[in-house]
């Protein structure tokens, strides 16, 4: 299991999906959780950075576990998830600050994989019961969601899948960002071409209902 955490921790950092000490990951082991240590560097995980604790009951492991433990627990208690990834992908976080209800990918890959990533917001955005409740609710319906101004939580039956949703989200957001940048640039530089984004997907208007 350590090998899996190391592999995806390194990837998350290398892809720029989290800062040196940000983000956390966990896996469910029946009635136990294996979660990254609070303050652990996902790019440099060692055996001591994986903390085992109870799914429902506290034990000494909570002294070391990620500050988002309460959120991870709530997700496992309310969904069939077996793995969780939480990171702060910068463009997705930026978009969550300007979009109202959801991020809707506009590119092919993002549409195929994600279709819609809902955005929710909380007053206390880190390790709070409020976020735990929201996360459990959202992930009963979606495989990934954005917490406004904070980051994304994603789930899967294996760590790799939860990682994939984060990676896909950030790429989709980057494409939205670049497209809007081009549209902006076109206002002052007509030589760049037409100002309208060209829609190529049938049913594109329905993605917000996903």
């Amino acid at each position: 299991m350590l090998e899996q955490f190391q592999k995806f921790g390194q990837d998350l950092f290398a892809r720029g999906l989290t800062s040196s000490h940000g983000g956390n990951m966990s896996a469910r082991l029946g009635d136990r959780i294996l979660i990254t240590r609070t303050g652990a560097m996902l790019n440099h995980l060692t055996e001591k950075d994986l903390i085992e604790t109870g799914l429902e009951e506290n034990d000494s492991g909570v002294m070391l576990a990620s500050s988002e433990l309460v959120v991870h627990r709530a997700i496992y208690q309310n969904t069939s998830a077996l793995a969780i990834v939480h990171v702060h992908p910068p463009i997705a976080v930026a978009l969550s600050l300007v979009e109202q209800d959801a991020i809707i990918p506009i590119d092919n890959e993002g549409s195929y994989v994600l279709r819609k990533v809902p955005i929710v917001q909380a007053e206390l955005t880190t390790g709070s019961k409020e976020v735990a409740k929201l996360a459990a609710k959202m992930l009963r319906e979606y495989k990934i969601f954005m917490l406004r101004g904070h980051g994304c939580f994603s789930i899967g039956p294996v760590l790799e899948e939860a990682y994939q949703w984060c990676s896909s989200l950030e790429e989709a957001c980057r494409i939205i960002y670049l497209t809007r940048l081009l549209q902006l640039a076109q206002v002052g530089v007509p030589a760049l071409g037409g100002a309208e984004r060209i829609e190529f997907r049938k049913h594109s208007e329905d993605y917000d209902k996903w």
Partner: protein
Amino acid sequence: MDGWHARILRVDLSQGTCQVEQIDRQILSQFLGGRGLGAYLLYTEVPPQVDPLGPDNLLAFCTGPMTGVQVPTGGRSSLSTLSPLTGTVMDSNSGSQFGVRLKWAGYDALVIRGVAERPVWLEVDEQGGTLHTADDLWGLEIPQTIAKLHDKGASAVCIGPAGENLVLFSAIMNDEGKAYGRGGVGAVMGSKNLKAIRARGQHRPGVAEKEALDFVEYEARKMISASPRTSQGLPEFGTSVLVNLMNWYGVLPTRNFQQGEFEQAEAISGERLREEFLTKRSACWSCPIGCKRETHTATEKGEGPEYETIFALGSNLGIADFETLIEANYLCNRLGLDTISTGGTIGCAMELAEHGLLNSELRFGRADLLLSTIEDIAYRRGQGALLAEGSRRLALRCEAPELAMQVKGLEMPGYDPRGMQGQGLLYATSNRGACHLRGNMLGPELLGLPKMLDRFAAEGKAGLLIVLQHTSAVIDSIGMCKFVNFAIGDEFFARMLSAVTGTHYEVQDLQTAGERIWNLERLYNLQAGFSRADDTLPPRLLAEPLEKGGSRGRTVDLDAMLGEYYRFRGWTQDGVPTPRKLDALGLADLDKRPAKETIHA
């Protein structure tokens, strides 16, 4: 009401009566339909101690909310009964259009019990059921029977001679080789003196939110056409595409699971089937994948064979004569036999004979005896009567139970679990016995779906298997095909179900429904006397390493996985669901076990 009709047609063959009754929508919502509804009916109406071949057992043909709705693969239905082969809860799933017609006739389920005095066949339409004498049908093979019942706007299923003769692995089939195949459901129908059923229905079910369904369906079809499994492999080769692949992995069961690699696999491969024997592709109702094959030999034509048949009657018997194998498949289809159990039982007999434990000419590789052996089984002629009882009873009779490759009495499908640890756990824990259709680990262990895992690792398999077991229960219950799960998953099923029924289902609601169904099936098996001791595998797979091939040196590390599996499920280490788990699933009120046992759990 969209999605369901909330109507059951009940037929009592002893009384000769047919009656339509309402079913509570809450039950349909909780158990979805299909396999889930069948498990509920069986659990609440048939104590597992009754004679499976007696009047008190029932046959419950159940449709799902997607059955007969024009969504990709929405043509499936399920049949539940107490199995005479295994003594467990049993459901067999089919792509026969019979289920679609049953749904269009206005029923979520057709429940048959009792025993008719003389052979009869049953006609079902929107008005109810009518019983007809079947003296002129009894004794006929499947194609002749179906031909006599052919009628526009209707679809029929029937038993063949194997079902009439109560072969414990006989099937209920139509003339296209589509079967309610496993667990001896044909024998149950035969024991009721019921030869055939024809369903006539024209009334397509409504859809609550058509625009929403259009969008989800559009997205689903995009995914199906983008996946090479559903848009290329299965359409081009059918399931036989797996022969060479399984052989390469070293998990193609060979000579009664003595080896995992067949030296003549190429001779019985999907590629050869396509080149030399394929007539044309075909598909079940509303299926864009189209994995079915119409084939021919020099002298015959028919349907199939599927991968499971090729393994069971081919590599598992050491037979590489593809023409004979294909004709053996046709013969099983005509006589109404489950090809997996037929091959598993003959393979067991071959090994028993090679060890001198069975007085028979059968030997691995004896293709010349295959067709006559199958006929002997179906008609219970000579030694065929002994084989007709399945591999477990055969091997017990020969005092070598370890040579039966079965779990809970059901012969194993075509994936040697020594090269797929999670598949071993699946076989051991499947509620109907050794089965690859109850959460197939082929995806994560060999095909990379949802992600490729280390197939030799035992650690971490239990949790994933449980999720897949629940998804499989959902697919069987809503009336769709598992192959579509190669392209789309729970998020699509939930949205389709919501659009069709008008009731909002979260993705997690479906996983919970799957878990509810799985636990109810487990309760039924516990009542029948099954326990942790039955969640096991043949000793060969636990102790005899494969000697060559891609899985050389491997056995199944079941003990480690089983404990983890029970813990993940919230069961005791005896494999019993705890009261807390049953309460969370809304099953506490249904639990009929004695209080002492429940408290102990």
